[in-house]
């Protein structure tokens, strides 16, 4: 399937927004402004932007721990700067600074957040998908996961239950090749991890996760199936993370030349080429997109830097819904 020029331009801009978001986050993580550790998704923009593009605000999204892109794009444009300020541990953050990089959520668009434990959201997502069946509506649930996630036993329980109960659940498995340092072929016997779904009679496929048109086409089919009540789909999206596991990981475990080869398959580069060659998009139009994104990102960064830090004593809020926890 090829997308219309307008559609392709829109998702190109979405991907560029993720790329620039991540690059800025990396700068401020490396200089110590952002506390803790972060997982960047540079190189995986097509999988994230393509899936989110297909979904409605009322569909449930469980991003993965390398999911800044899916998080930002799920949010309403006016809330996106608050996704960044959350990562900066600021009071204006979308979670008031409680969650940080791994737990950014926004219930207003049903971004349910990640959980910090691999394989955890894979079973939590059963519940939001179950809710759609229980309440007889057509909202679907997408759970993002990585190749490493599949090693967790919960993936078996989840695939088994969603397939048996025909839950409207789409497993988006972004195979970026490595679980920290371990290549997926060293941890799993399959050449392609999508074969996992077949044992559960879940329609499963492996696609080029850097080709946003393919991502959108296949995701749309899975979402349509789910909305029709025909059950789950597992989509393995082959991709690659350009950075190490966390910002600062030199990724010495990767063979020479591998990164360079994948940079040739840069989703942004591929899409830009298609825009120019197939749709006659000019350099000036591409430049205008870049400028819009730069303005946007500069605003996020400024907002994040200038926002106040949360009040430390607010740490005791929200432990329970109906009782206070003692502070200092």
């Amino acid at each position, binding site marked *: 399937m090829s997308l219309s020029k307008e559609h392709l331009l829109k998702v190109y801009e979405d991907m560029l927004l993720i790329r620039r978001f991540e690059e800025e986050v990396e700068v401020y993580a490396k200089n110590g402004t952002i506390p803790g550790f972060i997982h960047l998704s540079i190189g995986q923009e097509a999988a994230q932007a393509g899936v989110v593009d297909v979904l409605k605000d009322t569909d*449930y999204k469980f991003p993965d721990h390398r999911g800044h892109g899916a998080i930002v794009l799920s949010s309403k444009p006016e809330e996106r700067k608050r996704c960044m300020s959350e990562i900066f541990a600021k009071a204006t953050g979308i*979670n*008031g600074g*409680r*969650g940080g990089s791994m*737990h950014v*959520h926004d*219930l207003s668009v049903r971004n*349910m*957040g990640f*959980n*910090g*434990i691999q394989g*955890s959201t*894979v*079973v*939590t*997502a*059963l*519940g*939001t*998908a*179950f*809710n759609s069946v*229980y*309440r007889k509506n057509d909202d679907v*649930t997408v759970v993002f996961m990585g190749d490493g996630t599949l090693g967790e*036993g*919960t993936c078996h*329980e*989840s695939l*088994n*239950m969603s397939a*048996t109960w025909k839950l409207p659940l789409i497993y988006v498995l972004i195979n970026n090749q490595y679980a920290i340092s371990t290549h997926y072929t060293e941890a799993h016997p399959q050449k392609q991890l999508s074969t996992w779904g077949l044992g559960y009679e879940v329609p499963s496929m492996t696609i080029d996760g850097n080709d946003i048109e393919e991502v959108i086409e296949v995701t749309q089919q899975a979402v349509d199936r789910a909305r029709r009540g025909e059950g789950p789909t597992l989509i393995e999206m082959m991709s690659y993370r350009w950075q190490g596991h966390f910002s600062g990981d030199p990724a010495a475990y990767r063979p020479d030349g591998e990164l360079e080869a994948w940079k040739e398959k840069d989703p942004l580069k591929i899409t830009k080429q298609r825009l120019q060659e197939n749709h006659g998009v000019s350099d000036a139009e591409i430049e205008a997109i870049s400028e819009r994104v730069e303005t946007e990102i500069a605003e996020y960064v400024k907002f994040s830097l200038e926002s106040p830090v949360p009040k430390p004593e607010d740490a005791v*809020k*929200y*432990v*329970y*819904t*109906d*009782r206070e*926890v003692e502070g200092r």
Partner: protein
Amino acid sequence: MARTISFSKALNEAMMQEMERDDSVFILGEDVAKMGGDFGITSGIWDRWPDRAFDTALSESAITGLSCGASVCGLRPVAELMFADFITVCYDQLVNNAAKLNYMYQGEASAQMVVRAVTGGGIRCAYHHSQCIEPWLMNIPGLVIVAPATPYEAKGLLVASIRNNNPVVFLEHKHLYNVKGEVPEELYEIPLYEAHVAREGADITIVAAMSMLKFAHKAADEMAAKGVSVEIINPRTIFPLDKETIKKSVAKTGRLVVVQEGPKVMGYGAEIGAMLGEELFEYLKAPIKRVTSLDTPVPFAPGMEDYVLPHYEDVITACNEVMAY
């Protein structure tokens, strides 16, 4: 109007009446629907509401994970763990997920779910079907552990737990299932987080939960015959603990005996003891005593299991010791 019914029936009634009242309540678990549960606690629910009672695969993580996800959508799942011991295979969903969701969502949504867990020893089923698991959950802020001791409490606390917006692990001691008592027919709630003074007294405070309450009552009678007045506190909610009620009682009696079925290390007795040592040191007239299981797995052979579980005589010994100190 109150009738005399069993602890099991009281639990069943709580779920049925809550499901009648609120269509966001549903049940799920292994064999809970068509069979009505391994212990029959959910019997009749599937017959009445086939679309709201779900038999699952043997997948405790999926059961509790689904409950987390469904509850943040506004549903009220009541999941059953056939044996509380199985909590280890879904520990992550309870500890890292359910207990954190309200914190993560800053009050916008929470894991308003109940996990009913069949707990305790004495049925000759060895160490994977007999454990008291509350210590495994007692330092997880965000979780609530509820532990009824009577049929009246079983219904009122289960109703309150279903209505509560926090994740509740609801402990059902299997030795209590056949115990009978007066239970109102209509719906009622017993508030969570409040301990119950089950008997007033002046000389010794006994804190005892679930099946241990009967030891406490028997000991109170026996000590009364010797002129010693025992006050009994039943925590009802084991975590977060109602410290004030316990402190008030011990401030009066100056003597504490905790009876808990699980091993001695790190049970509610340990927490109560430490809390009183910190906050009520000057009121204590004698060292705190704990009557517990031995620190072993629960063995199978009846003689061995009886040897390991708490002995009634030990409660009397403890009471005599705190009085003689």
